[in-house]
């Protein structure tokens, strides 16, 4: 009995002592707006339900692949946002800039927005190595990722889909 009381007293004391330090206001895990959920490279994109999905995710490409797809998904989009891709080759030179592309122009409350940009590859136009792709949201750098291009890779700016 004394032991039970002791444990009870200990808990009360501990609770009283820690009361100044512990609060019990329950919060949800932070879910900020326009948060980049994924930023990756793939060979194809597939349509499914309302969203497009990446297929054949990889970070290694060859010039013969013909293209590199940079796929992004952004979570908690509640207003219109501007997406922009920048592609840098192995010599750290800008080879493609999509400029701003407006997404969710109707300012819907969207849980996820998926989008992608395509870098066409043409053999013999640029050197192999580590290429860097950047995603900007509303003019701010939001994600960066690199891929390896083996053999000769080339680029010809073309219209991109987002």
């Amino acid at each position, binding site marked *: 009995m*004394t*032991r039970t009381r*002791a444990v009870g007293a200990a808990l009360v004391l501990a609770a009283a*002592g*820690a009361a100044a330090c512990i*609060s019990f206001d329950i919060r949800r895990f*932070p879910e900020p707006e326009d948060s980049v959920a994924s930023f990756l490279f793939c060979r194809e994109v597939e349509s499914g339900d309302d969203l497009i999905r990446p297929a054949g995710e990889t970070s290694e490409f060859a010039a013969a692949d013909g293209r590199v797809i940079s796929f992004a998904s952004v979570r908690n989009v509640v207003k219109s946002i501007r997406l922009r891709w920048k592609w840098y080759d192995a010599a750290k030179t800008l080879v493609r800039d999509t400029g701003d592309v407006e997404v969710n122009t109707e300012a819907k409350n969207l849980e996820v927005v998926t989008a992608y940009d395509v870098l066409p590859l043409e053999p013999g136009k640029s050197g192999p190595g580590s290429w860097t792709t950047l995603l900007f949201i509303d003019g701010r750098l939001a994600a960066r990722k*690199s891929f390896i291009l083996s053999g000769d890779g080339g680029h010809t700016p073309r219209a991109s889909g987002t």
Partner: protein
Amino acid sequence: MKGRAFALTGWVAVGFLLLAAPALPAEKRLFVVQGETLVYSYDHNQIYGEKVAFEALGYKVTASYFKVDIPSRQALAYGSVTLAKDAEKLEADELVLSLEGMIGTLIRYGPTIETTPLDAGAAGTEGRIEGGPTTAPGGVFDGINLDKIKKSFLSFSARTISLTESYEVLGEGVTLYLEGLESMGFKRFRLSDGVGPRRNGFAINRIWYNKTQGLIGRASYSIEKTNKVASLTQLNYEERSFLKENYGIERQVDLLTSTTLTFNETLRMGFTGNYNSSSQWNVQTWIGKTWSPAFSTQFDFSYNKPVGFRGEAWLGLQSQLSAGKWGNLAVQGRYELRNQAVAGLNYGASFLNHFSLNLQSYYSRVKIGDSRDFAEIFTGGLNLSYSSRLFNLGTDYFLNYDLFGGQVLSQPQLRIGLNPIVFYGGLLSVNLNNIALYSQIGREGLAERSFSDNAVLSLAIQPVELFKDLRLNLNLALEQFVEREGRNFTTGGIVFNAVRTIREGISVEAYYSLSSRRRTRGWLIEGTTGQDLSLVARAMVGEAVNSWVSVSYDAKNAQLRHSFADLSFKVVRNWSLHAILNYDFFLKKLNNIDLYIVREAGRLQFRLIWRSLSRQFLVEFVPR
């Protein structure tokens, strides 16, 4: 009993307060970051933030995103990064921080990628530019994102997070999440242990309670000055007086301290001390001098007080000489003030490419308990070996001379082994080894002699692909043991193994083993023969399933013997189920079941365990 109750009450309360309090207020912070979103994963020891502000290298920094990978000691701020100091204002897309030494690099993505070391002059005395990253850092930050931290077993969100010099993470306005579900809020909390020990100051390292060990407290005090002083003192306290089933001592205190002083590159001095509340303690001080890269000496003095015996004070001297091709020599000697002594010599050398020689010699003169008598023993060993491409040959001599008891053990030995010989392009491999041993024990003019010889021949056939999915393997061994007393053994065995792959990751294996042991003594031959047939089914499907089940059959007596199973399944997220079972067909009884529910959580593993044999249910946090 009342005393115990109060002890429990006090300790639990103190424990809670220490856990909730900012335990380490004095240590310098590498940075203090505030942000609209700021989260920390205990599993992965990583921080992620959005819309953050912090100070680094003398600048006030703001950025859209912030990532810290504490194990690699790197941080990255990116997205509209601004650095402000007085009138100076810098802008960049990224700021990369190497936390070890606080080195900063700015990266801008314009027509080219422009990398600029953050200027030391502009940063004042806190920043350095040497060796900063010249390109954008890669993979270490790719893996840090909000989703990953949310999926951690233990994660925290906070209003402010600071990182100390010892890489401890402290938070203010903290909410704790278990599996991403909100659990409890704290005003201030120490979110992680440091990567290494604290560099300077006092730390409460652990306060823990469990049912079998009681209340456990660990604290430490450390002082470190690079290349000058390194000192660590640890205090361990265990309180068991309030445990219901405590049959040992009620409480235990251990104090351990170790200090090393470095005077220069060749001269060092140290002190160690240990105290245990059961009244045993020891102290040692030493001084070491390196005379040249090949020759060093250490002198020490120690006092050791064991429980129930008188203390002993020892003086010691050790020297090491590396003489290159002439070999290595180590000499040590210790003397105790009550006339006890130990001395040792060790010499090793390799010569003529194939030979190696090792010589050891030890002498000890130590008291027998608290009596006035001494045990005096001399031991010596000599080993000479020769190895070539075809065979290896070794000869050993061991001598043990008990000077007090007047007994001498002398034991020469000869080893010869044939290196594996392969035939038919590696399909067949043969190995032969032999050990001959002679020993003589002499006492008071009488001598006892014995000898033995053991020869082992083994033959292995490399796995043979019979059909597309069927592989066979065979091993044979034969051993002959002969000794002077005439107890001669002949042992032979064969192991046959067949593996059939049913589909990728799923296979069935069969093992058949036959062993026979015969003993001959004069005309009498006796022995045993054993057979075993086992079937094993394995399934390994990605990360989801990794299991095997085996059944063993006694072919000699035509009966099933036992079955083992090791089943492992991934259930959801990072939770997996693991079961180990053992069934005895002879007793018709499930001998043992161990069930594990495991959560892989980065640098720790959380386990719920049930063991049928001991009827125990355990909850464990195991550091990885």
